[in-house]
């Protein structure tokens, strides 16, 4: 118990600093958010046009109403699981200031994690409720009945949390890779775009050829976005949800171990190069 208290006493100041930064740059955040949500609206209009251009009511099991929910909940999920603490790791590696972190007596993935959680707190509060409420009101108006389902919503929150963990450690791995390929802009662009496609953020995996969709469904990327969104939409049975979340947990563990492994190699290399 005291150990836990000690843990939080070390890392909570990082969260507090994160919150303060967020408040200081609130205007930046709001503008950033508006910029990002544009892409969700474009998707929305594109899918609307797709359904309007066809006499079909469903595509691959998605109705227009499903598609709209999919687009916005995917945006929300992507936003909430987005982790850029690792970008800071990469930057510190490239400019060499990582050395000051290595001499501090705290685990620095935890420093980044708590800092990021702090900086996220306000943005989550500001974006989560409006988007979920908006989506549910839209569903209600279109279908004429309340579709919001509390068990699925809670499971979504659970899945979302695990997805954030995977995203965090995935990006920590990427950040550590900066030790080896000292380039951030280009590689992170490649990483972002590939991840968004592989995780189903651009187009639902169900729209892809079946063998490809099956592979992607198993890979960690689906755990980042597709799994939680499908749970939210009630597309999975409870048995399938259990399997999916189990898979997510597996990937979380895998990413965590991988990040430790890369870190160990990186430190070895760092000491060889002498910083």
């Amino acid at each position, binding site marked *: 118990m005291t150990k836990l208290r000690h843990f939080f006493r070390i890392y909570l100041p990082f969260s507090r600093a994160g919150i303060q930064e967020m408040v200081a740059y609130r205007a930046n955040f709001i503008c950033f958010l508006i910029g990002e949500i544009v892409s969700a609206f474009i998707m929305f209009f594109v899918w609307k046009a797709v359904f309007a251009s066809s006499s079909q009511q469903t595509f691959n099991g998605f109705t227009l109403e499903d598609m709209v929910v999919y687009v916005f909940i995917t945006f929300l999920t992507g936003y909430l699981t987005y982790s850029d603490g690792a970008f800071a790791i990469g930057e510190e590696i490239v400019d060499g200031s990582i050395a000051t972190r290595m001499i501090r007596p705290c685990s620095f993935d935890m420093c980044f994690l708590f800092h990021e959680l702090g900086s996220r707190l306000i943005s989550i509060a500001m974006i989560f409720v409006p988007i979920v409420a908006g989506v549910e009101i839209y569903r209600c108006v279109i279908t004429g009945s309340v579709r919001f389902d509390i068990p699925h919503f809670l499971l979504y929150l659970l899945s979302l949390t695990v997805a954030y963990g995977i995203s965090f450690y995935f990006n920590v791995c990427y950040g550590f890779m900066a030790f080896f390929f000292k380039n951030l802009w280009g590689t992170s662009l490649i990483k972002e775009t590939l991840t*968004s496609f592989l995780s189903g953020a651009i187009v639902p995996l169900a729209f892809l050829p079946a063998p490809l969709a099956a592979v992607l469904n198993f890979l960690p990327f689906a755990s980042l976005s597709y799994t939680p969104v499908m749970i939210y939409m009630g597309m999975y049975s409870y048995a399938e949800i259990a399997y999916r979340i189990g898979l997510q947990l597996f990937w979380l563990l895998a990413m965590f171990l991988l990040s430790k492994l890369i870190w160990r190699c990186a430190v070895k290399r760092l000491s060889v190069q002498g910083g």
Partner: protein
Amino acid sequence: MLRYLRLHRIFISQHLKRLMEYKTDFLLGAIGLLIAQALQVMFIGIIFSQIPELEGYTFDEVLFIFGFSLIPKSLDHLFTDNLWMVGYSIVRKGDFDKYLTRPINSLYYVTVERFCVDAFGEMLTGILLLSYSIPRLSMAFHWYTIPLALVVVIFATLIYTSLKTMTAAISFWTKASGHIIHMLYMTNDFSKYPVTIYNKAVQTLITYVIPFAFTAYYPASFFLTDKNPLFCIGGTVIAGTALFALALFIWNRGIRAYESAGS
């Protein structure tokens, strides 16, 4: 004028030399942009595997509009990328000082410094899409089609550059405006698709308020249909000119408000 071109030549040749030094950085950036665009094209492909036409536009036509939108965008990206840095850090850190101590237009000076070769990734995608779609479309070709396209591309690029200049200039008052540039810049994605798929509000927004529709859809639709030259081409020219004048005005006012940074 000649002086400005000579300066550009020096800087570009320097950048190309530097490119050799940072080959991997350049390649990774360009590949990243190429992949980003390619995935978007794939998205369009997946959509058209479900339906024959999108709001009356065929696959080839949508690719044409999409490809066309990338040309002015990549040109602007290539030449004026430093405006992002004005918004994010140059003004805030007081580094704008140096642009004011030379007998040369400060807007020109700040943009000539950076030549963002990553943009070739976007440009390449644009060219590939155009060369794929044009032969498959039954477009009317006139003697003036090519020169007109060049003029349109110039003014469409000017729309991008002007909007970026205006938002970057906000930093002269607020110290930093990178996030505002970002917000505005993201709306350019609307122009990749036929505007007819959007509702009235969005159409009005991207036609009359932030006229990104004139950077792609309107001129492209003229080339596709030969209709409405006055609105589609004239609109691009007028929007480009008016925005550029406004951008210069705001930029110059901003310089007067510039506060540098503590000694």
